[in-house]
């Protein structure tokens, strides 16, 4: 191990050898601290995934067509859904890459180093990368991109992730219309994002943050060419394997392979996305008549009807995608934590998974930490208990239950189905739920303000990312208006703890608070699925729903 290796790595190795942490866990932690995946696999004794040998065997050439919604993609830093990011991902790339095993690798970076206090992150860029235009990728490009997403006027959701360690909120001194102080955000220090030399960028953080490499892989954190000024479209410059040659909103996108790509692939000559609209039947019909070679996503119902097609292969992956039914604790009915507990006890998770997901899910435990998350701590399980729930409701002053509206969206359909099954089950404890479905675009307008709603949460590789975003007091995406100083304290503690054993202990406390006092009912973790034509090779379904066309090939 050379000097650049983080001082904590030997401790991790010790812990793995004494059995304190698992080998997978070791891989995750060690790579987070900047150890290369190859070295980490070597130390762990686990066989490294055989990605290096396989690619040579993949056939070259051909075209691949994948069915996916193609919405606007004006600004790479404003991307907010996996589908939109897939359109850009073939052209622009990220600094890091989190694989299907939840392990984060360097991508545009050669490696990164982090200080012992987790506050100084040094990012070393690869030196062999050039833009389509031929210019080499430099630290200036990276600094421009990082600074741009931190500008509140741009509107990138990266701002929410970076707040707390790169970005701070401050009082502008002006007043809003309601006389509350007007807040704004800015980099916490002029030096927060620092160019060290042409190939090195340093992040000087205000607080310790373990999840920096994961954050750098979040949808909008594309490294785009500053010369494009944050505008993306056909012909946009990028470091990625493809060039976009054509794009029509609602219709599709076409790409041409780049010959001098620095990484693996691309194997295809050309690649396409085809917009098949919102009707699930259209995707099935397009697969049936081979108008597309695969889909970006297929739900359980679609999968069932396509299983019989002889040319179709089904892919499934366990994700940390979920839905939470969250209650605003300041609302009369939900004020008493016994009501929130009763809501959790009213739920029969297996039944919801069977009915709403046709079995494509695993039960969750109301704390938004998945068993596949590295920091997961197992707590005692509890099942449905209608008697106890009724008793808790009675104690809280609702012996006859109450009526309430639940806001949700009609698509994807499994979300509405989940809401309906939940409403049925809440009925058994006397809580009568009236479901109000809003179109998605309108739902996202009110998702943080309605007192009771059902929200889908995307896949994230670390639980602290979601917890800090969604349950910390005043966090940008704290849709449940939850404020618990103890939880905040524990979260900050967890973000700065390296020792996996200690960290898991803190997570156990956090999970227990969520189960006892927390604002959510969380029925399941979703299994994500899709289909590809059997002629498609090199395809691996990623839990984040990201697609990487440069890894795919088609056999003739």
């Amino acid at each position, binding site marked *: 191990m050379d000097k650049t290796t983080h001082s904590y790595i030997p401790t991790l190795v010790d812990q793995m050898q004494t059995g304190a942490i698992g080998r997978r866990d070791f891989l995750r932690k060690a790579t987070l601290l900047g150890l290369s995946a190859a070295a980490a696999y070597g130390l762990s004794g686990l066989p490294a995934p055989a990605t290096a040998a396989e690619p040579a065997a993949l056939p070259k050439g051909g075209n691949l067509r994948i069915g996916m919604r193609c919405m606007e993609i004006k600004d790479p830093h404003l991307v907010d859904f996996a589908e939109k990011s897939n359109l850009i991902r073939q052209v622009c790339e990220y600094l890091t890459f989190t694989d299907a095993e939840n392990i984060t690798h360097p991508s545009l970076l050669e490696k990164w180093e982090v200080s012992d206090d987790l506050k100084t992150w040094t990012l070393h860029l690869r030196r062999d990368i050039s833009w389509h235009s031929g210019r080499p990728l430099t630290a200036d490009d990276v600094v421009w991109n990082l600074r741009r997403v931190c500008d509140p006027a741009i509107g990138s959701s990266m701002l929410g992730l970076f707040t707390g360690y790169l970005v701070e909120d401050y009082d502008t001194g002006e007043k809003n219309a309601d006389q509350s102080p007007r807040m704004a955000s800015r980099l916490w220090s002029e030096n927060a994002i620092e160019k060290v030399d042409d190939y090195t960028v340093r992040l000087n953080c205000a607080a310790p943050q373990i999840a920096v490499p994961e954050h750098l892989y979040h949808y909008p954190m594309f490294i785009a060419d500053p010369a494009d000024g944050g505008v993306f479209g056909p012909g946009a410059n990028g470091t990625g394997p493809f060039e976009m040659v054509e794009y029509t909103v609602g219709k599709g996108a076409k790409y041409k392979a780049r010959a001098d790509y620095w990484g693996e692939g691309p194997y295809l000559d050309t690649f396409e996305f085809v917009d098949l609209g919102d*009707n699930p039947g259209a995707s099935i019909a397009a697969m049936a008549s081979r108008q597309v070679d695969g889909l970006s996503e297929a739900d359980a119902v679609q999968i069932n009807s396509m299983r019989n097609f002889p040319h179709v292969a089904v892919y499934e992956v366990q994700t940390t995608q979920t839905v939470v039914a969250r209650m605003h604790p300041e609302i009369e009915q939900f004020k008493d934590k016994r009501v929130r507990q009763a809501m959790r006890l009213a739920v029969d998770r297996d039944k919801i998974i069977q009915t709403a997901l046709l079995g494509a899910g695993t039960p969750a435990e109301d704390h938004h930490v998945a068993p596949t998350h590295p920091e997961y701590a197992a707590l005692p399980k509890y099942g449905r208990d209608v008697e106890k729930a009724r008793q808790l409701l009675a104690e809280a002053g609702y012996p006859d239950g109450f009526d309430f509206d639940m806001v949700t969206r009609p698509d994807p359909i499994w979300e509405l189905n989940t809401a309906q099954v939940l409403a049925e089950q809440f009925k058994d404890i006397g809580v009568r739920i009236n479901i109000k479905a809003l179109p998605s675009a309108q739902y996202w307008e009110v998702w943080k303000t309605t007192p009771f709603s059902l929200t889908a949460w995307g896949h994230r590789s670390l639980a602290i990312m979601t917890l800090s975003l969604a349950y910390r007091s005043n966090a940008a995406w704290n849709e449940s208006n939850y404020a618990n100083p103890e939880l905040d304290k524990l979260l900050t503690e967890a973000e700065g703890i390296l020792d996996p054993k200690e960290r898991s202990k803190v997570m156990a406390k956090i999970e227990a608070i969520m189960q006892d006092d927390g604002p959510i009912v969380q029925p399941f973790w979703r299994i994500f699925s899709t289909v590809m034509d059997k002629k498609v090779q090199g395809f691996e379904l990623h839990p984040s729903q990201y697609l990487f066309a440069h890894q795919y090939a088609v056999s003739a």
Partner: protein
Amino acid sequence: MAKFLLKRLVMMVVTMLCASFLVFAVCEFTPGSVARKSLGPYATQQQVDLLSEKLKANDPLVVRYGRWLGVLVGAIPDPLQDPDTGLNFSDPRGAQYFGNFGYSTLNKLPVNDVIWDRLGNTAILAGLAFLFIVPLSILFGILSGLKEGGKLDRVLSVICITFTSIPEFASSVFLVTLFVILWPILPGTSPLNSDGGWPIGYQLILPVAVLVIYDFGYVARMIRVSMIGVMERPYIRTAILKGMSTRQVVLRHALRNAMIAPFTVLLLQINFLISGVVVTELVFAYPGFGRLILDASLFGDIATLEAATMITVAIAVTTQLLGDLGYMLLDPRIRVK
């Protein structure tokens, strides 16, 4: 005649203004601000407020409607294209020109860049459907109207009523199952590019068939009723008594009079076909006008909705005008007035 046309033109403009104001007002009651829609669900409230301010989205409804109208007629430049907004919106036609429908918040493109292609696609679909609907419905209508209650009438009526009562989504699923999955001779979707190996002509067959199946029976029933009415008139009886052949009676005496009422109904089908093909376009992933309107209304994309409203109202008024002119040609009594 000039006075008549001018009157119609004024009426059209008034209707369009009313309709566009209604759309504006209705959008006001659906949740969602332009700024939030431009930035997406994950932007912080602070960012949304910042953009709202730049877009002057908090102005009263009437002020914003006035601004939209001003942009449309080219009196003022589109505020969304102001570089200050940081939205990077630019229209190759410039910021100020007549017919500037503004910027689509859903597509992040000038509405003019999106809407006309889509309208063209739907026009192709609707035009082809119309080509089949007109002769089929006239043929079915006349044949069944000739002898009310006869065997032929009953058979054709059953066909017409059955087809019309099957909703489009049901008939399209049925056709897809039949011709795409069980007997794969047609493509299942119509994205209107031939890259999937299916020529565009093939892609049009199923959506056109669905529209024809749904619509022709209804028009045929209208023609049938009109035909029955005409066949009971004294002059037809006289013609038959004079010994003319059925063929002569139908073609020379009945048809023209029987077509007067259905003519309007047929023209109304153009409106239906342009703005009512949503289901068919959705099922076959057809990149048309209907799907655009659906997406825009679900998203609350006011600029696109306004443009679509203007276009559909214009088409409706124009077909109505054509209907009236046709009426004059068919019925001399109207011309006298």
